[in-house]
């Protein structure tokens, strides 16, 4: 894993000291709220409905057991004993006091973490495939490039006051597990015909009130050009992005309004001017950073594990967990284990301090001390020996962390919604809880198969509803919570924006509506192997409309 160097350590320590002073001056009345607000936002501090909220960056979703323990400790000491993992691989505390934030930042700095650029119109935390470095289908670990982008974009003076926020994601596999095409920039690491490393470049994607799928600007950008090309994109955006209307200020709008060809020409012209300059990545520097992400010292193991297979045969609960929560690993005899943070009736993405410590301990015992956060609000142990999976499952079950639903209908992504958020129009979490409760039967979930239900409590789409196979958007209709349903969205390599199926539903009705959609899919699919998306694309919305609203 990456370790801070002297520069990282110095600038994080400096920021903690600065913010401690800023908070003290704010509390003493020396600076006004108007002056303070941009300062607190630059340090990840929001004011929510009940309290302040602090958002912590987890770069490319990778953290160590030591860091996870520190997060648990902060949750216990300064929050209400838990934390909330988000769709941007971040962690949010929902109850910190402003007076405590400087101490929290100091505690984070001790484990090489911070909240810089988790808010504001700057380049946000770079996200990545949560299976990076271990996925069986991976071309190359994308995290060294995410780390290079993190270093380049941290406190970059030219890009701290962009027209709007800016999100970058990096993947290293043809399967898109990071919603690449819904980011301002998505880089997919690949090899060209000669075997050289580089990137497919996707630009101008996003969710929010105007969802857009990113356009592919380059099929192959050589590795050495990563920063020069990124800077060229940011410069074109910084120059032409709208600053007169925050709803039209994202790069996606610029790409849409100017047209991808015009934008490509501008970016390529800027890139040509700076390509051979200081931003050209030296090969030795890429290798130096990549060395931090070198695979751990896996023991040589046979591909088949007798212990694993015995447990599969003996324990149906383990078999169900293994089927849904265990993914193939690139190294023989190993597996990737997803820890679902979606127990039926729970709050999607929440983990108690005790659970965080359990995960830290289990990662140390079974996963070389490494943990990932997925944008689907789950945790991942990336390096588990197949022989250890039964013991890991037992330990997770003891901590209430063995929910065997990864990728199934009850693995619902939901934003905090009106239970916490000042922007929300409707609640998300209780809807997720009730839908999960309705679809909870294990055999039924298994029969339905993979299904992505995504819920946002407002048009800003933090719950990724546009990318849900079934998306739910909460709106305020004359003071009542009301929910619009979209169908056919995907955040994967077949990215699509869900289409509104028809008139919306009350909070009471929406659970039954989702169940009707699920039942219609199961009844009309060509067979259990036809996915929801494939069935929707074949059938169109008509059978779903009929199930929801009756025959036309």
């Amino acid at each position, binding site marked *: 894993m990456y370790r801070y160097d002297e520069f990282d350590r110095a600038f994080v320590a400096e920021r903690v000291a600065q913010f401690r002073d800023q908070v003290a001056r*704010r509390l003493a009345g020396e600076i006004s709220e108007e002056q303070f607000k941009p300062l607190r936002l630059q340090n990840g501090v929001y*004011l929510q*409905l*009940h309290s302040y909220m602090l958002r912590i960056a987890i770069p490319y979703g990778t953290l160590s057991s030591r860091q996870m323990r520190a997060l648990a400790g902060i949750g216990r000491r300064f929050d209400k004993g838990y934390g909330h993992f988000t769709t941007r691989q971040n962690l949010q505390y929902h109850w910190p006091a*402003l*007076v405590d934030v400087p101490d929290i930042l100091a505690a984070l700095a001790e484990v090489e973490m911070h909240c810089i650029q988790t808010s504001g119109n700057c380049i946000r935390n770079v996200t990545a495939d949560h299976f990076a470095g271990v996925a069986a289908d991976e071309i190359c670990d994308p995290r060294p490039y995410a780390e290079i982008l993190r270093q380049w974009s941290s406190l970059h003076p030219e890009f701290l006051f962009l027209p709007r926020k800016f999100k970058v994601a990096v993947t290293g596999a043809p399967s898109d597990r990071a919603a690449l095409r819904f980011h301002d920039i998505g880089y997919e690491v690949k090899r060209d015909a000669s075997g050289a490393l580089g990137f497919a470049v996707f630009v101008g994607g996003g969710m929010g009130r105007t969802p857009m799928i990113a356009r592919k600007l380059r099929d192959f950008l050589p590795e050495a050009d990563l920063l020069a090309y990124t800077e060229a994109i940011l410069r074109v955006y910084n120059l032409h992005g709208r600053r007169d209307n925050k709803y039209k200020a994202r790069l996606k709008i610029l790409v849409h309004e100017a047209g991808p060809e015009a934008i490509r020409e501008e970016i390529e012209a800027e890139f040509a001017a700076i390509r051979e300059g200081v931003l050209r990545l030296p090969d030795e520097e890429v290798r130096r950073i990549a060395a931090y992400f070198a695979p751990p010292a896996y023991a040589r193991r046979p591909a088949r594990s007798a212990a694993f297979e015995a447990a599969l045969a003996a324990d149906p609960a383990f078999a169900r967990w293994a089927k849904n929560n265990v993914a193939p690993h690139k190294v023989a005899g190993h597996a990737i284990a997803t820890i679902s943070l979606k127990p039926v009736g729970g709050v999607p993405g929440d983990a108690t301090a005790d659970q965080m410590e359990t995960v830290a301990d289990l990662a140390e015992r079974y996963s070389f001390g490494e943990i990932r956060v997925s944008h689907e609000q789950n945790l991942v142990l990336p390096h588990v020996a197949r022989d250890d999976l039964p013991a890991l499952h037992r330990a997770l079950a003891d901590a209430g962390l063995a929910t065997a639903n990864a990728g199934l209908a009850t693995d619902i992504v939901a934003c905090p919604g009106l239970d*916490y958020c000042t922007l929300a129009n409707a609640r998300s979490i209780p809807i997720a809880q009730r839908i999960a409760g309705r679809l909870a039967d294990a055999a039924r979930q298994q029969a339905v198969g993979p299904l992505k239900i995504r819920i946002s409590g407002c048009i800003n789409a933090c719950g990724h509803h546009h990318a849900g196979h079934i998306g739910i958007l909460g709106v305020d209709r004359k003071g009542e919570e009301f929910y619009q349903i979209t169908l056919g969205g995907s955040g994967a390599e077949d990215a699509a924006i869900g289409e509104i199926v028809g008139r919306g539903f009350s909070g009471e009705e929406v659970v039954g509506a989702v169940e009707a959609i699920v039942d219609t899919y199961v009844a009309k699919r060509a067979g259990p192997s036809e996915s929801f998306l494939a069935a929707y694309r074949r059938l169109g919305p008509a059978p779903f409309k009929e199930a929801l609203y009756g025959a036309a």
Partner: protein
Amino acid sequence: MPKPVLRVVTANRLADGRVVFLAGAGWTRAIGAASLLSDPQAEAAALARAEADAAADRVVDVYAVEVVREAAEIVPVRLRERIRLTGPTAGNSVAPSAPRAS
């Protein structure tokens, strides 16, 4: 007869962000103790007092909230304000072994 709509002035406390309501003697966490405002003049005066407290860096985000009396309780009209008053409705990890009083 629809219940008469009254108003209370609310804000978040600067130091810890907690929801507070304007009362005769200052700010209170208990809406039942808040000053109930029944006419525009009273509301304007209360908002002016509250804004002065915001300017004096005690609270942030001052505004007036519609409430009604239900039995002995003062209840905000809008769901958002009811959630601000009583906390998240979502259960579970929001009510663990809380080590800190809020």
